[in-house]
Every structure is written in C-alpha cells, then in structure tokens.
C-alpha cells in the first residue's frame, strides 16, 4: 500500500465540480432518437388491411379488426396492436406492402393497473384510435436500401415484337420451374386477390403449391373454382394482380403466369386422377346453351355434382369467344382444347353445329331438361353509326378474328383502320399486324382511357400499331382502287363536370382523311335474343344488354339460368367462369329442392 495508491483515488472529487450527467426530464421527457422504434402509426388511407403485419408478427400481437367499409383492394381491416405482446422489432413496418405502418418516436405509455382488467389496455388501432403520437414526424421508417418485400417480378421471357408479328406462335414463353418458384416466393399470402377474383380462386393456395413444388395440389386447387385454368392462365383479365398488395410499391405477383405454369407443368391426362371426390349420379338433366367459359364452367361443376349435361354449340368447335374472339398468339388452341377435352371427357354430351332456336327450339329444351343454363355471350357487334358504314370494306373485329380462327383469309389488304379501344379492337389490330398489315387504331378518348388491357396496348405499340387517339370517325367513303377513305376528326376532352370521365367533343372544322383498305369496327357488342323466343321464355325479362336475373343467375323462371357476358357487366372470361360455377351450385340446389347453396363447392 504505497502513498500513491492512497492518494490517487481522491481524484474522484474532480467530478464534484463538473456538470452532472443527469438529464433533467421532470418537465419534458427527452424525445426518442429520429429512428427510434416507438409506438405505431398507421396511415389508414394508405393501409389496405392486407394483414402482412399480423402474419410476420411472431408474438401474435397484431390483430386485424374491421374498422371501415370494404372497398376494392382494401379488406376493411386495420391492424390493432397489443403492447402487451409487441417487442418493437418493427418487422411489421419493414414488411408493410403499402408503407402505411410506421413507428413514431414516442415511448411512454403508462396505465394504472390496479383493479382493472388489462385485457383491453395497451391495445389500440393506430390511425383509428387517437393517440398523442399520431402526428409525430420522427420515428422508425423503413430505411433506404433495406426492404424485406420482394418488389420486382421475375422477368418473363417473351418473343421480341419483331419476332412475334411474323407468326401466331404464343408470344409469352412461360416460367421455368426455377423462375416460377422464385416468383411464387414473392407472394405474401394476404388473400386480397382471392376475394377480388370473380371466381374466388384460392390464389395464395396454388401459389404456395408452386413454391412447394406440388403441381398436383396446385391443379387440384385450381379446379376447385376454375375448370379452365389453362385458358385463364393466359388470357385472364387478372383483377387479382391489380389489387395485389405488392403492386402498391412494386410489381404485382404474376398470378396469371403462375397459373399458366401450373397447367403447363401438369400432364393433361392426369387431371382426372386429381379429382378425389366421388360423383353420385342425381339422374337430373341440364342443358347448357353455349360453350363459352360460362357454359363450360357450368358443365364441369354440374357434372361433378352428378347431373347429366348436354351442351349446345352453334359453331363447329367449342370454346365460344375463347376460340373465336381471342387470337392464337395469346391463347393457343392446344391449351384451350386441353381444358375443353377434359370437361367433355368427364361425360358432357356436346352438340356442335347446333344453334338453339334454329336447329333445336328452346321450348323443346325446356321440356326435355330439368334446368337450362344459357351463356351465349354478346354476339352482335355495335354499329359505328356513321355514313358509309354499309360499304363492303367495313367489317367488325369479331368477324376478322373468327375468320382467322377458322383458317380463312380475312382479306385485309395492306392498311386497315380499327375503330375502338377495347380488347377486341386490340386483338383485331394485332392479328392484322401478325398478318403483315399496317394498322391504325382510332380511339375517341385518350390512351389512358382505353378499356383494353394495358399490356395489350403496350404490346400493340411495340408491334408498331399506330394509334390515333381523340379521333372521332366521321364518314367512310369509297376511294380509288377499291380502297376506302376513312374520314375522321380530332376531338378535345371536355369535362362536363358531372364527375364522370371527360367526354370527347369534336373540334369544329377538324377533318382528316386516311386511305385504307378496310375499316374494322370494334366498339363493343350487344346481345342477340332471337333464339330465346318461345312459349316457355315469357317469364324471362330481357334487358338492353343483360338478361335480368338474381346474382345466382336465376331468371324469373327458376328453370332458366344465365351467365357469362350476357349476364354480368364485366364481360371477361373469369367472370363467366364464376357465373358458371355459381349458377351450377344454384341449379344443384334447385334440383335438390333447396333454397340456396350453403357452402362453397
């Protein structure tokens, strides 16, 4: 023990004359750091209630509870956080696909505990229940350069525009197993897509099956709600992808291509093995008019329910609009045949070239069958309503598409104009391009107003289809050399203030002339009820475009059901499939004498 050791500790007294370390927090607590992970904030406007936060929370501290009206792509649920469970790991913030969930830097929440059930305390729904930290600027946000979500799609290989215009080979190559698994891996299984899908396909379910490389399981899931997966995997309008949670910040999961991958990877002959449930014959007979997606879907499910099914088709092949309205480069006939053949194999009796109302009367059907499902679609193209429409060079999009399908030459010449901006217009235009014709599309509104699929428009542009937007057709005149003079005028968009989209108004005096070989009108189709006439159909109320029925497709005559484009307003394949499925269930319960179907198939 030397003297230095005794004296040097007294150095501590130096600190007595310095400022204390203590921070004074009596009046106002020290705020947390800028990145501090404090209590949650939720921008309820941005939140879509996908539940990923609840999914990733290992403590089950996040409950999704209903707070608002369910909107499209919004489940109406909002996360409620239980701070008796939370561990402030902020994984919920990191995973949030909409970036709505964040954390403030507030950290003090004190509750009296005595004599109070804590079951309800320390739980709150950020953004809904008011808290002092709701508007705090600082706090944890997902840092730059770090993101748990996989926002980029797996690149899908496509034929280049130059390659694809030369033939009708399917332009999208499809996923390899590796790619499909990677793409399937992106899904966060929120299920918003399932609800949005008109057919309520279990999308997360079959994506999971792909991820786990269980193709059979995937096919089984597909067939539960969609008997035409091969078709849908290619041409579905995929409203599911529009609402996909990932699409809020990045690219939606390629649900359509994944479905296609599933059907492509399975052998068509094996489908039958996947149907495990026994079919008990009911002895009832159902007639189905039309072999579009609605009719095929209804046929499949009715067969699975044990009913005898006969299908009537006016054309020489089944498929309806799928076959005659969609060009081959989008939907190869092979895929379509696969799906149709499977349904026929299950025991449906198919009458081709049999037009109801002509070859067989509707009354006869009504008497012979226990129920009738009709889904003939919209077949009559709308007229443009301008002078010169009756000229021989003027035709419709559907005519062209059908002719191409049937292997006939539509005789388009070298430059055509397509009027309209819908999918049929695009198909017609692109089909013409594939035949080597120069195409100009004239549309009344702007490019962004086009009802056609954005991919279609993009691809059409890539294939050098010329677009004239805000162009109003005025007149078609006969021109030189058997050509036509297509006269159109420029329009401007006028907002009429009614809250609707602005409408195009012709600019006074604007008049332009284009020399074309053919004019193709593709501005929409209407229904043709000619075949429906008869004694037994008096009760069925016909609307302008749709037949009136309840949401099960049941008309006022309980024996007659409708579906497909002639029933729903969305007019796409998946809606028709959903209609078929729904009506099949309704028919099933009608035949069994029950009121309405109770459970899902």
């Amino acid at each position, binding site marked *: 023990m030397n003297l230095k050791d005794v004296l040097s500790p007294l150095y501590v007294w130096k600190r007595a004359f310095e400022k204390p370390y*203590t921070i004074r927090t009596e009046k106002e607590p020290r705020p947390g750091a800028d990145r501090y992970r404090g209590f949650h904030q939720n921008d309820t406007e941005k939140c879509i209630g996908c539940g990923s936060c609840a999914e990733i929370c290992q403590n089950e501290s996040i409950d999704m509870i209903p707070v608002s009206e369910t909107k499209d792509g919004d489940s109406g649920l909002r996360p409620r956080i239980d701070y*008796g*469970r939370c561990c402030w790991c902020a994984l919920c913030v990191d995973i949030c696909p909409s970036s709505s969930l964040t954390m403030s830097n507030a950290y003090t929440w004190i*509750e*009296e*505990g005595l004599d109070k059930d*804590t079951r309800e*305390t*320390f739980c709150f729904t950020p953004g809904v229940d008011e808290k002092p930290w709701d508007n705090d600027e600082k706090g944890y946000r997902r840092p730059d350069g770090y993101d748990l979500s996989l926002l980029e799609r797996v690149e899908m290989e496509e034929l280049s525009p130059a390659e694809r215009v030369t033939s009708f080979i399917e332009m999208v190559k499809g996923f390899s197993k590796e790619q499909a698994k990677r793409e399937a891996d992106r899904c966060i299984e929120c299920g918003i897509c399932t609800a949005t899908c008109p057919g309520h396909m279990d999308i997360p379910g079959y994506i999971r099956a792909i991820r786990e490389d269980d193709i059979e399981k995937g096919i089984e899931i597909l067939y539960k709600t969609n008997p035409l997966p091969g078709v849908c995997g290619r041409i579905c309008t995929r409203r599911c992808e529009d609402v996909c949670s990932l699409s809020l910040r990045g690219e939606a999961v390629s649900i359509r291509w994944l479905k296609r991958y599933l059907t492509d990877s399975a052998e068509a002959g094996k489908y039958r093995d996947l149907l495990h449930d026994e079919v008990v014959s009911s002895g009832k007979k159902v007639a189905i008019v039309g072999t579009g997606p609605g009719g095929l879907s209804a046929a499949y499910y009715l067969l699975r329910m044990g009913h005898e099914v006969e299908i009537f088709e006016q054309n020489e092949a089944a498929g309806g609009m799928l076959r005659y309205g969609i060009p081959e480069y989008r939907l190869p006939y092979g895929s379509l045949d696969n799906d149709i053949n499977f349904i026929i194999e299950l025991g449906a009796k198919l009458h081709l070239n049999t037009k109801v109302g002509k070859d067989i009367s509707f009354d006869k059907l009504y008497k012979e069958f226990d129920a009738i499902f009709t889904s003939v679609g919209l077949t009559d193209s709308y007229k443009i309503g301008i002078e010169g429409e009756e000229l021989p060079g003027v035709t419709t999009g559907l005519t062209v598409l059908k002719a191409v399908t049937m292997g006939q030459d539509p005789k388009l010449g070298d430059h055509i104009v397509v009027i309209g901006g819908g999918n049929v217009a695009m198909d017609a235009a692109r089909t013409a391009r594939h035949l080597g014709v120069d195409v100009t599309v004239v549309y009344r509104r702007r490019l962004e107003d086009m009802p056609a699929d954005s991919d279609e428009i993009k691809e059409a542009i890539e294939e050098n289809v010329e677009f004239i937007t805000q162009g109003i057709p005025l007149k078609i005149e006969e021109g030189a050399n058997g050509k036509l003079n297509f006269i159109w005028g420029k329009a401007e968009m006028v907002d009429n203030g009614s809250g609707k989209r602005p409408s195009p108004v012709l600019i006074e005096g604007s008049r332009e002339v284009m020399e074309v070989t053919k004019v193709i009108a593709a501005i929409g189709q209407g229904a043709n009820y000619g075949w429906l006439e008869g004694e037994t159909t008096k009760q069925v109320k016909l609307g302008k475009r749709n037949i009136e029925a309840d949401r099960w497709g049941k008309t006022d005559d309980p024996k007659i059901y409708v579906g497909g484009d002639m029933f729903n307003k969305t007019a796409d394949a998946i809606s028709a499939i959903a209609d078929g499925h729904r009506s099949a269930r309704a028919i099933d319960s009608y035949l069994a004498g029950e009121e309405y179907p109770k459970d899902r198939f």
Partner: protein
Amino acid sequence: MIDKDKYKDVNPVEEEVKTLESPKNNWYVDEKTLANADLPEEEREWFSDARPQVVPPIRWTPMEKFLNWARAKSLWILAFGTGCGAIELRPLLTARYDISRFGMAPRPTPRQASVFMIGGYVSLKTLKRIVRSYEQMQGPKFVVAVCSCAINGGMYWDSYNTIKRIDNYIPVDVYVTGCMPRPEAVLSGFQKLQQLIMDGKAEGQNLYAEKFDWYKANQKKVIKDWNMPDYNW
C-alpha cells in the same frame, strides 16, 4: 377505501371451493387461519398463521394525505431484477437518470422496500420468489410492472416457463409498456405511481388481502411444488 362488494363477481373462490377437493388444497377452508399443513411439524412453528389483513387508511384525511405524501416521496425499490427489465433499472438508478432525485432508492431487502418493480417476463421459478418477496414487503407496498411481457406475455407468449399476466398473481399498480421501456418511460411510471399514492389510490396491499384467496388459487395453479407457507407475512 376499498369497496368489498366490487370484487364479489371477480372473486372465484366460491367455485374454487367446489372444484378443488384434494386435501392438499384445503388451505381455503378456514377463513381465519392458514393451514401450513404440508410443512413438517417443527417448521410450521416458524411461520405465521395469519392471513394478510386489510389495513384501512387513517380516517383523518389531512394526516393520511401527509403520510401518503411521505410514502410517495420516499419510494424504496426492491432490488430484484426479475427479468430483462432490470437492465434499464441500472441506468435509472445511476447518474444519467438518477431516480434518487425523486426520493427513490434501491433497497436490497424486501422488508424495507416499498416498490416492487417487475422487470418483464416472469419465469415460474422467479414467480415463486416474487410471491415470497412481495409478501415479505411491508405495507403499503406497490408494484410497478414494466415491459410488455408482464402485461400479456410479450415475446414469450407461448413459452412454457413464463407466466403471462403478472396481475393474476400479485396486484399491480402501474404498468409501463415497452420492450425494453426506456428509463424515461420507467421513470414516468414511477412518477405516475407517486401521483397515485398521493391520491390514495394505490391500495394494492389491501387488494391483495381482500382477494387473497383468488391470488393464492392462481399462484398455486402454476407453482406446482408449493413448498412454502401460504403467506410469508
């Protein structure tokens, strides 16, 4: 003053009496005394037979107010780091946050301490010690539970060895949530407790005495080898 009728419906003792019939669990039969029946003869004498009693506050309000002020301004914390919450107790006690400014100080023995800080999750083994320590503290005594684990299980909601809600086992006055709550948050919790004491609301000790049977039933439900007296003063 604690209203006895208030707890009538939450007190499940009546049902307990019917359901628990094994001789091991007959401690509730006699209202007045605790039968430390499982203990050996000579050990039984070491332990008190008395149940905890409700000690009402003094009737003369100004005096009680003054005493409550003294209690609030001199809170001695039991230095028992029951969980990871204890790690923030240390900064709290030391220079940076210096809880002694508010008259609080750590106290190593439960006899002298008046606040029990439950620092987070409580494992079964610790719960036993917590119950003992809590009962050894002299009233009025207060419990501050910090961390989310003490509220509803927190991270360890599915663990087989931690209890989820400490208020099933001892009465809690103030909760502070966080994982970990920052020292400032814990400090605010203590200040809240001071406020409660001064308002005469922190009557956990009396609550424990009143709902004693309920608390005991809960404790014995999870502590399988109950090898200590029912009440440790």
